[in-house]
Structure formats: C-alpha cells, structure tokens
C-alpha cells in the first residue's frame, strides 16, 4: 500500500534513538513482524530517496483528536545516523509523511511448541519487539538476547519484559548485563531441537549468529539491511548473495522483496 500518514508522536528514548508513531489504514494490521515500511522524509529532493524502517509495533489506539475513534498506527524505532533520520527526528505531531507498507517478507514464526530465541542489538531490536508481541500473543515461549558495544545499544528492554519476555543482556564493555558477546550468551541456551532463532542487528552479529545456528543445527532467520531505492524489487539495488552464488551461477536475492528476513542458510556469509 501507499498511503499518507500523520505523525502521532516522535519521542527521543535515549540519546539519538527515537520512537515514532504514525497513523495507518486498518489494513496495515495484517503486517507481519519483519516486514518494513519506506517513508519519504521530505517532499523536496533532499533527501531524495525513501528510507526503510522495520515495524517496531503495529496496532490500534483510540485517537482523541479523531473523536475517540479507533485508529490503526505503526511505530518505528530509529537511530539518527544521517540526513534523513536527522530530518525525521525534527518531525512533530501532525506532520504528514508518505508511506509504502508493508513491504517484503516477514519472519516465519514456526510451530508454537518451539522456544523462540530473539537475538538483536541497537535498532535491530525494533522488529524483534513486534515479533515478540505477536509470538507472546500466540502463547509461545520467547527469550530475548540483546547485545551491543555498550549500554546505549540496549533499547526498550522494559518493553520486552512487560510482554513477559525473559531478557539476557550483554555488552562488549560490560556497562549493562553480562560482559561479552551476545552469541556467547545465546550459545549457552542452544539445544539441537525445539528452538528457532530470529536475529536482527549489525551484519557481523548476524553472521556470528548464523554460524552458530548452523553449528548447532538450529533454524535461524535473519533480517538484513541494504541500501534501497525502490523497495519493491524493481531496481535491483539491494541484492545479497544467496548461498550458492558464484560468478558463473549468479544467485542474488532482493533484500526488499525476497527479504528482509531470510533463512540464514539461504545466504552466503563469506
């Protein structure tokens, strides 16, 4: 869908990290965790391209300004890194945005009997929160492994805990939770069956998780990032190498259309 959305709120959670709520048509309630949206930050040419963000949450609220009617919303959790996100951070209630959503393929939650291990860090936690919400609602057992360089990379843990998700935090410098890599903490919980990993975060972290998942033969889905222009599979700007890619037998996947969530075994990690 393409729709005009109104900013409901846009709050700085911790320095440089913002949570923004936008209005959406009711159809967006069908959006899957892991799918994403693309928004046009400016109607001028700067910045030119849309910016992609995962869903941090999708739901409904009673919109006071709309006379208490039920209004669908979506939320993103974003980090200010460049000119687009800088402009986003300056938006206020009432500002309008143009959205494409939902885009791409989301997480496959798998059977309910499995234990769901969510692994992420920084803004990688954003789509995992929406995933956790959906999994918890289904009654699944969910654990969160949140890692980062330091405490600033660990966001919204209380939100996860409020859902009843058990959280394991680790930081490289030990400023929050255990000191060390998130994969070390994750590995202690891994068993060969009845588990499924969902990971989102910086590519090196995803790679480490993918390698570990392979070693322990645990199914693992990763949510990837790539520079995007169109978001709909048309420009071929956002591709990644599939597991069997070679110069002779090319196997590129579009992050925007075939992903952003991939089975970690499908991708080439070298």
């Amino acid at each position: 869908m393409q729709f005009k959305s109104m900013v409901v709120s846009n709050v700085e959670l911790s320095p440089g990290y913002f949570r923004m709520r936008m209005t959406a048509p009711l159809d967006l309630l069908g959006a899957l965790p892991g799918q994403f949206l693309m928004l046009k930050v400016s109607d001028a040419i700067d910045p030119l391209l849309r910016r992609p963000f995962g869903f941090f949450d999708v739901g409904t609220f009673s919109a006071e300004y709309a006379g208490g009617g039920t209004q669908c919303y979506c939320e993103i959790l974003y980090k200010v890194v460049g000119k687009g996100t800088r402009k986003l951070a300056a938006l206020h209630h009432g500002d309008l945005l143009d959205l494409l959503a939902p885009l791409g393929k989301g997480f496959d939650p798998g059977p309910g009997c499995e234990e769901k291990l969510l692994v992420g860090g920084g803004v990688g936690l954003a789509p995992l929160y929406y995933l956790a919400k959906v999994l918890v609602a289904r009654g699944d057992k969910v654990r969160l492994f949140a890692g980062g360089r330091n405490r600033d990379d660990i966001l919204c843990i209380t939100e996860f805990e409020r859902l009843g998700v058990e959280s394991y935090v680790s930081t490289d410098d030990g400023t929050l939770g255990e000191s060390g890599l998130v994969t070390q903490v994750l590995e202690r919980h891994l068993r060969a069956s009845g588990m499924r990993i969902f990971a989102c975060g910086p590519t090196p972290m995803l790679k480490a998780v993918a390698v570990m998942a392979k070693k322990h033969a645990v199914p693992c889905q990763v949510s990837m990032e790539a520079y995007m222009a169109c978001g709909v599979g048309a420009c071929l700007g956002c591709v990644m190498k599939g597991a069997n890619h070679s110069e002779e037998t090319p196997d590129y996947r579009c992050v925007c259309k075939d992903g952003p969530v991939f089975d970690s075994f499908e991708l080439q990690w070298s």
Partner: protein
Amino acid sequence: MQKPDMTVEVAGIKMRNPVMTASGTFGYGAEFADYLNLESIGAMITKGLSLKPKAGNPTPRIVETPGGMLNAIGLQNVGVDAFIAQKLPYLAKVDTPVIVNVYGNTLEEYGEVAARLDGLGGVAGIEVNISCPNVKQGGIVFGTDPQAAAEVVRLVRKSTSKPLIVKLSPNVTDVVSMARACADAGADALSLINTLTGMAIDLDRRRPILANVTGGLSGPAIKPVALRMVWQVAKSVQLPIIGIGGIMNGRDALEFMLAGASAVEVGTASFLDPSAAQTIAREMEQYLIDNGIASVASLIGALEV
C-alpha cells in the same frame, strides 16, 4: 472544456499519453501493479535484457547523491529466454505497449537478442541501450563512438521488424553526431538521456561507495543536461525523440516536450513514488485543461527560442 487529447505516437507505437517508464526503474512492470494502474500510462519499458542471464555487479550498487542517485546495477537480468517465458506473458495481458530494452556484450549479441524478440506478440518495440556506463565490455564504445553505434543499430535493424528506439548516452562531446549516426543507421526513434557517469566516496573508509567504483547518475540533478541534449538533438535530427532525465512531475515532462520530445520516460521518480508515472500523466493532462490546450502533441517542439 473537453478532455484534451493526450495520445502520441512514437515510431509507430500508439500511446494513450506520453508517459513511459524508463528501463531499469520499473522492473518487469508487475512490481508496480499494486501502486498504479498499468493501463493508465503510455508505455512500459522493461529492465535491460541480454542474451544470457547476467549477474550484475557486486554491492553496494546504489547511493544517494545531492538531488540524484548513482546506480551500478551492472544490468542484472534474467536473460531473453527467461524473459519471454516468465515475464512477457504477464506483460502481454496488460493493455499498454511493452517496449523491451536490450543490451549486448558484443555486437553480435545485440543482433541475437533483437532477433529473439522479433515477431513476438506483446512486444511493441525495442529500445537498444548503447549507453550503459556500468558494464565493462565495450559498452562504452558503442555508446560514445558514432561508427560503433551505427554498426549496432544497423545489425539490430536487420534483426527485427519491430519499431526500433536507440537510447543515447550523455557522456559524449557531441550527442548530435551520435544521434545522426543512429538515425542514418535505421533507428525509428531516439531516447535520451541515459545516466551521467559519476562517483561517490566514503570519506571515513577512504573507499568508493559503489563496489563498481563508478555508477550512473540519475534523478532531478541531471534534468538540465537532459533537457539541453533533447533540445539539441530535436533541432538537428528528423526522428521522434523520447526525453528522459530527472522528470519528477507533469511540468517537467511538458518541458521536455517543448524541447522537442514526443514522449518521456520516467525513471528515478518511480522510486520516490511508485505511482509517479500515472501521477505525471494526470498532471500533464490537468495542465492542458488549465491552459486550454487541446492536444499534448501540439506542444512537441513548441519552444520559442
């Protein structure tokens, strides 16, 4: 007032309005079906097609620049056979002319791809890309040397009876002599411009941002260069021209028509707004209505210099 006449005809291809989608920016059409009515635009041009499937370049392949973007996709495409088997059937059902953009690594390949498409129902015409800056093997020569370009055009002309559009590169000293060479070699129409070759650098990592180092610049930034070239070529060559480059709205499109274009292609704009082509056609029509202009074709080359 009556609705204005928005139809145009280019190289024998009849279109309901002058707005075509530029190759490489509209996939194989289906990607955009959720966002606009494919039967509301003038024509669709598909992603550049080569004889064999092509992997394209390593990533990153795109980067934003001031008022534009660079791409170095490297012509990743499914190859002509897969296109015919997998993509064309969908497109053929849409009541809008489909023009297939083709590319060859060698002179011969150009001829072969064109030959495979000849006689196929659902293919309204062929746009020959002699101007892709992002592939190494000779692409540059075909697009920048009038003799080499003419050779490609002659061969493709022999290989197909379809309407033949030749797409020109802006990375040349003299676009008019390129245009003349293609016209003389048998092109039915010319489209321009393809992208300007550019580069972006990641200062902190001290590396080019694109894996391919250089890429093609598109978007609003290039519009003045595109307008100039369309105007130059339209003045000098007796073929219909399709204007391309940074068209974002109906006014931009109409400016290209004043400069001499019979139709336009919309590229980067479809990334910013997947319904851009339809919106632009609507804005053009509205401009005609607001200004009491009866037919869009009356604006072609109507610039007073």
